[in-house]
């Protein structure tokens, strides 16, 4: 803070003076609490995921009523979505918003209430699903509606808190990250409401809404929050501003216009009208424009920092996150093309896409954000070895996972097209499921290491990793 504080000290309401030490500690406590919660849900949710992966090899293993595939699968997806990814992103969003607005948090109490609500929803949802209470096959909306209402309440509390914080920002301009965060929240609130409305929950309407909801959940919730985090964490870590702010602004507004129209491609080849599907496909291709713009912006910000060696692990996580976004979305677009859809729809290929995006993009972004920002908040660094171990285990694990399922999914789809007996496709998938299990084990191990790192960054003994903020390089350092 030295230079910033000095050069600003003559200015009465300077940014450096906005957060008193007590307020800084409060923010750090909140960030910590969210991160720890999220870590718990990551461990729990992916333990279930790993179990699921095993069940593909050994379907009879632990086949008791409460441990059947049908009950565990939604537990996995919902817990990693609403327990892990959401809570982690919201925690980061609090830090990013407060810091980039150069102000203090509007209400720490609201933030705590929000965290409680998120956790209550996740716990209740898990229990309900395992006991067999659900809303049927509505993907990612399996929780019974009262529980989803709790989640909705958490969203409202959080967005209120964030908006009030932004309202007291120190600069006229609202930094891009906050646009993404607020945009994501507002959109998601609308979507959640729509998803709860009762009167079209049956029949075809339900298929449409389900697709709409599902894609909006990933496209208008996780994606903007993760992108907002990128826009803060990447410049922060590199100690250099984003390559083009204007490009970021343009990408944000194009996203806002395009994305709502996109949900349709999730029910291709479902009984929905052909024209609606075609429309959605065209939009999917259009979606690639902001994706390319955004990724280029991040990668150009990192320019000159690719030395064939990793200078900073927080940056490495963020880098993989950006690649995950770029590759995952491109893959999604290709997947949406009708002829390819014919092969891949309903196969494990889609599961590969889900993990490439939700894991390779969102989860890596979350980790990058936490490694970049949590030490700044708490003043404690993790261990260097621990971070490296986490990175490599997770990266190798998810690569094995995604590659094996992409190949496997294609084989599976071709089998179906050729009209082979269904069981043949299952047999053909066997090695790929096995590899997925291997990748899954590595991923899960990395999560344990992550938990240890979080502990060192918060409550435990700090480790020896260097500060996440890199020394400026090249022209700036010269």
């Amino acid at each position, binding site marked *: 803070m030295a230079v910033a504080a000095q050069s600003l000290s003559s200015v009465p309401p300077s940014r450096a003076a906005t957060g008193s030490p007590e307020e800084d500690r409060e923010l750090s406590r909140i960030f910590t609490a969210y991160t720890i919660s999220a870590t718990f849900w990551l461990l729990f949710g992916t333990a279930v995921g790993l179990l699921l992966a095993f069940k593909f090899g050994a379907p009879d293993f632990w086949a008791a009523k409460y441990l059947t595939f049908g009950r565990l699968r939604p537990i996995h997806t919902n817990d990693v979505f609403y327990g892990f990814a959401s809570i982690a992103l919201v925690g980061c969003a609090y830090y990013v918003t407060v810091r980039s607005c150069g102000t203090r948090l509007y209400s720490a109490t609201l933030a705590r209430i929000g965290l409680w609500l998120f956790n209550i929803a996740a716990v209740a949802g898990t229990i309900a699903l395992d006991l067999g209470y659900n809303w049927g096959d509505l993907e990612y909306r399996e929780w019974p509606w009262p529980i989803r209402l709790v989640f909705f309440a958490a969203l409202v509390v959080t967005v209120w808190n964030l908006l009030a914080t932004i309202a007291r920002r120190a600069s006229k301009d609202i930094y891009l990250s906050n646009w993404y965060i607020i945009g994501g929240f507002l959109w998601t609130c609308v979507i959640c409401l729509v998803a709860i409305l009762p009167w079209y929950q049956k029949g075809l309407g339900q298929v449409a809404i389900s697709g709409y909801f599902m894609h909006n959940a990933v496209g208008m919730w996780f994606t903007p929050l993760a992108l907002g985090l990128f826009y803060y964490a990447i410049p922060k870590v590199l100690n250099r501003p984003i390559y083009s702010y204007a490009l970021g602004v343009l990408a944000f507004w194009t996203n806002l216009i395009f994305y709502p129209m996109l949900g349709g491609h999730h029910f291709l080849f479902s009984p929905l009208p052909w*024209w609606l599907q075609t429309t959605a496909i065209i939009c999917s291709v259009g979606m690639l424009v902001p994706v390319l713009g955004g990724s280029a912006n991040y990668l150009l910000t990192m320019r000159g920092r690719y030395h064939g060696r990793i200078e900073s692990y927080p940056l490495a996580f963020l880098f993989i996150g950006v690649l995950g976004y770029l590759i995952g979305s491109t893959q999604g677009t290709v997947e949406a093309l009708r002829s390819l859809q014919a092969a891949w729809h309903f196969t494990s290929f889609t599961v590969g896409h889900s993990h490439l995006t939700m894991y390779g993009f969102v989860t890596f972004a979350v980790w990058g954000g936490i490694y970049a920002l949590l030490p700044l908040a708490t003043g404690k660094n993790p261990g260097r070895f621990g971070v490296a171990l986490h990175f490599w285990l997770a990266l190798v694990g998810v690569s094995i996972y995604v590659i094996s399922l992409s190949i496997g999914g294609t084989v599976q789809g071709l089998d179906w097209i050729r009209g082979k007996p269904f069981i043949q496709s299952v047999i053909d998938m066997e090695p790929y499921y096995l590899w997925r299990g291997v990748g899954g084990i590595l991923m899960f191990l990395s999560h344990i290491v992550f938990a240890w790192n979080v502990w060192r960054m918060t409550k435990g003994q700090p480790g020896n990793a260097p500060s996440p903020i890199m020394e400026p390089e090249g022209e700036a350092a010269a």
Partner: protein
Amino acid sequence: MSAPVELWTRPALLDQVLRSRRDGRVEVVLRVAALAQPRRVLQLEQVLHALPGVASIALCIAARRVRVVFDAERLPLTQLLAACARAGCVAQPLQHDASGAAPGIALNASLKRLAVAGIFAMQAMMFALVLYLGAVNPLDPTTAHLFRWLGLVSAIPVVGYAAWPFYREALAGMRARRPGIDVPVALAIACIFAASVANALRGSGEIYFDSISMFVFVLLLGRHLELRAQARHRADGDAATDALPLLAQRRHADGTLETVAAVELVPGERVHVPEGDAAPCDGVLASERARVDASRWSGESRAVGHARGDRIAAGSVAVDGPLDLRVERTLATSSVAALERMTAAAQRARGLVGDDDAPAARRFVWRVLALAVATCAFWLWRDPARAFDATVAVLVVACPCAFGLAAPAVLTRSLALLSRRGVLVTRAAAVRALARVDRALFDKTGTLTEPALQPDRVETFRGVARETALRWAVALARESSHPVAQAIARVPADGVPLAHGVEIVAGGGVRGVVDGRPMRLGHAGFAGTDCDDAALWLADAQGPLARLPLAERVRADASACIKALQAVGVACALVSGDAPTRVRTVAAALGIAGWHARQAPADKLAHVRAGQAVGQVVLVVGDGGNDAAALAAADVSATPGGAVELARAHADLLLPAGLAGLPLARALAERAMQVLAQNRRWSLAWNLGAVPFAAAGLVPPWLAAIGMSASSLAVVLNSLRIRAARAPHAPPMALHERTT
């Protein structure tokens, strides 16, 4: 630093800078040079917002301006200024302009309309897409009907709000009985929309909600890009002209100082410029010596020494101590005023070319309208069912939107590029002439040549090594801005010591202590030897140390400039008042075949006239001394050099960065005219080519709309293809923050 803040309590001054608003608040525009640094911007924002009584602030970074609206009762201007200064952003109030409209409002409005058009055009296209797909894969009628209605709903904001400027302009044009190109546009939008609504209500027939929305969007996009380029250009100009102080300190005969408004100064008066301040007027240095930073003019930020009698341009900043000036020109006639005129002229670029094009476009519009009526009449007679489509298609297709945009888009772009490359254009129309120039007349002395040292003929005395003597001479020469001194300063030499206690003696040379020895560098008399015209002398207390012979040398950039011009077919000639031998040598060195020596101003003028008489387009390059008449008569005139020359020369092109700017400007002008011609050809070809088909009823309105808006956009984008030869070397902003 600058004039004490307390001055800003004086009513007469406040009147100049504060503009009262209808809401009882006042508005002031401040120039804040520190806005170049993002960190400062943020600080300033915070500081201003924290002040009581500040209602709103608007920053324009490019123009380095801040517009503050505040409550003068609660916050005196002095406090506002003091707060800025505390934030590290010294602010200077600017004279408020008569118009007073905050810039950017037009731009904001256009941005909003653009966004609305964009978002809803998107929606309309989505819905239309469904209908188009329905042609392949039949829709049930209810769905089709629903989507027609949805298209209608999405088109309403576009037609009702985003397209508003077209109606407004069209109406204004009709009222003034000079219909502009917006008339057919507005008519077309109204007709197509009305017909589509009717068809949507009827439930049959074509609807064009998507194409009409897209049409509006693309037209708005073209205009927005154009508007932005203009705003940016104006901001750059503002930044250059704002640097002038509003106040001056007049020195009375008894030596006392009085603060007055700069406009009040009259030639002959003496003004005092405190250290760090800018000179309020053009003047002659009245104090013994001074160092000033004229980076505003030269673009090169370096302080140069001046001696009594040297000319100092308004806006030059006094460094290392205060100075006194004798006012040479009133503000209204100063170099600054010239620069202001220049930017104003450049800003009117639109008007200037518009003047050429406006009547053409107007005739065009009348013809389009007549043609539309004729088409309508014809089809009503032949086949009333097709009358509507054909009429609308004609309206749209024949609309000269692209034609109207062609010239302004090109000129805005090229003027902006040129000013970024160090070529200032004072008359936009000169760009056109420059592209056609086929004869160039150059003045010699000061334009193509400069004095130069002949290092190998340097003589030294008293056993001083030649290198040592040169080093000393360079050390002293660096301190002066006199062309001869600059010639010596340019000599490459290593380990040049620093001169101390430097003093510049008017009409003599430079005096100072180098390597612990007091020395003098100057003409023979100054250095204490006999008369010797052809050399400078370096001497110390004991007597001469070295003789530095001078010769006339061709400027480094001259040869390249001439070659480049000749290469593009411009016949270059040298017209000089100098003796034939010297002129011949220079002409030979530069490869100029035609040269004329011993030319009086009248002869030079005659050369220009002669060239023009045989149909040549003549460019005259001179410094405005004895060639003022020729410069004035030329089709295009250019002056190498900075501020002082500017006020004297009244040239169309100013080349503060040297002659290298000339070929560059020529290339750019040619490129610009090529693009302009392309734009025109393109838009005419489109109009003329498509009209017959439209009139024949062969072009459906949606196709017409798409084609027409695409052709306007093509024109704007085509103009953006004009590039300067090398990338502009904008200084990189210090953005990389170190936080240790």
